[in-house]
């Protein structure tokens, strides 16, 4: 659990000094930019990689976390390359293998860059900052309550899951001999999650949890760094849209 929690706010880069809502918004703009950049040209690929690298450098996530992100992206997105033989390029289903590979590779690369941008954004935000940051963004309060609660409950469930795994390990359920215990894990896990959900719902009812739960946005004065960051992130998004529309490059 401590490891999962450690991702939040682990970055030590200059981005951490920005206001929380600027960090969140910039991360979202860059993520959207990466999703839109066309990857048919080397320029597009280079542009996307540079954006992801710059954001990672500015977030200054610890090497250990970077490595974990790399492993996660490999596990999650490498399988796209296995789909190469079945890829269609444009409307053609008989395109050369290299084109198909490029297509699959583009999906994997784009996903990897977005994952690194998301991870770096999380690395700049302590979990306590998320609520305040979201409250300062012009989004509906219901949405803020929902996101905050999603994060909160996900962290609780992760904590619970790690506790169950710890108990299974302690009771020797990691070896091949006791593999049968592993089959009971989903049942144990599901039952505990359901009970926890029920108890949390009860607590929410008693505490009257609702839209008032959104914290207020204190008067924040944007610094020059805040303005510059948001301008750059917006510029990236605009450039991506222009590239997508083939207005530039």
């Amino acid at each position, binding site marked *: *659990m401590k490891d999962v*929690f450690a991702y*939040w706010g682990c970055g030590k880069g200059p981005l951490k000094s920005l206001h929380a809502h600027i960090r969140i918004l910039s991360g979202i703009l860059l993520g959207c930019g990466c999703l839109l950049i066309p990857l048919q040209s080397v320029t597009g690929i280079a542009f996307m990689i540079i954006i992801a690298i710059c954001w990672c450098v500015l977030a200054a996530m610890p090497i250990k976390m970077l490595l974990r992100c790399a492993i996660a992206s490999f596990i999650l997105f490498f399988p796209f390359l296995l789909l190469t033989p079945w890829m269609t390029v444009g409307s053609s289903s008989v395109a050369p293998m290299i084109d198909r590979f490029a297509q699959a590779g583009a999906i994997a690369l784009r996903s990897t860059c977005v994952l690194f941008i998301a991870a770096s954004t999380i690395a700049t935000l*302590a*979990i*306590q900052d*998320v*609520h*305040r940051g979201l409250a300062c963004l012009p989004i509906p309060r219901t949405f803020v309550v929902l996101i*905050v*609660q999603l*994060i*909160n409950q996900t*962290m*609780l469930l992760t*904590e619970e899951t790690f506790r169950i795994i710890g108990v299974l390990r302690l009771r020797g359920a990691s070896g091949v001999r006791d593999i049968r215990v592993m089959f009971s894990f989903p049942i144990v896990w599901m039952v505990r999650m359901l009970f*926890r959900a029920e*108890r*949390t719902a*009860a*607590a*929410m*009812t*008693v*505490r*009257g*949890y*609702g839209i*008032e*739960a959104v*914290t*207020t946005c204190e008067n924040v004065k944007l610094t020059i760094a805040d303005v510059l960051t948001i301008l750059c992130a917006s510029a990236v998004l605009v450039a991506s849209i222009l590239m997508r529309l083939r207005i530039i490059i």
Partner: protein
Amino acid sequence: MNPVLEFKSVTIRYPGNSKNTVSNISFHVHHDERVALFGLNGSGKTTLLLAAVGLVPFTGSIFIDGIPVEKKSLQKARDRTGFLFNIPEDQILFPRVLDDVAYGLIRKGISPKVAHEKAMSALAALGVSDIAECSPFQLSHGQRQRIALAGALVTNPVVMLLDEPSSALDPHGKLSLADVLRSVASSIVIATHDVEFASRTCSRFLVLYENELREFHSCRDAEQCLLGNFSKMTQGEIPH
């Protein structure tokens, strides 16, 4: 003076169970009273507390500050109650401790600034003001229990229903919690197994024993009842 919490012939049976969890329970708690609710595991202590805030179905009547705990007036009754669940992380709903403690006040329309100041005082009273800016996920079980308790205390409820409030506290924490609970203006019902903590905090002792509620004025007698040693009780006979 009207009781702040009143149970009248309350019977609770969970759906699918053939036996009642508690049967025909009646008792009341007056203003400024501190009551300990003892019972063996599975005797229905937590169930009684949950029924008081309408979280489990029951027959009979329950009143909080004169307000019936029923569908129409449930929210009013809940607003007069501070509740501590036995697993504190279930009721911590915010990623920052201060936000969580202040929530009850903000919900009542108090300005965030004042709410945060009051929340800080509640945290300070429980000796955890230094973790106000932390995330609950960074904290120990005992610290989380204090945060949940601060969230219940901060609104100055008419009655506080506390389920095992001392279970995760160290000896020093138990002593200071007993002091805090003795000093608050609310009436308190504590479901607990911790006899020493109850004797420090409460003046009335109820025991749920064999599906019935029995009352004692001495913690020692309540403990003997729990152990089944009726012969050692100073009162000789179990008063109903």
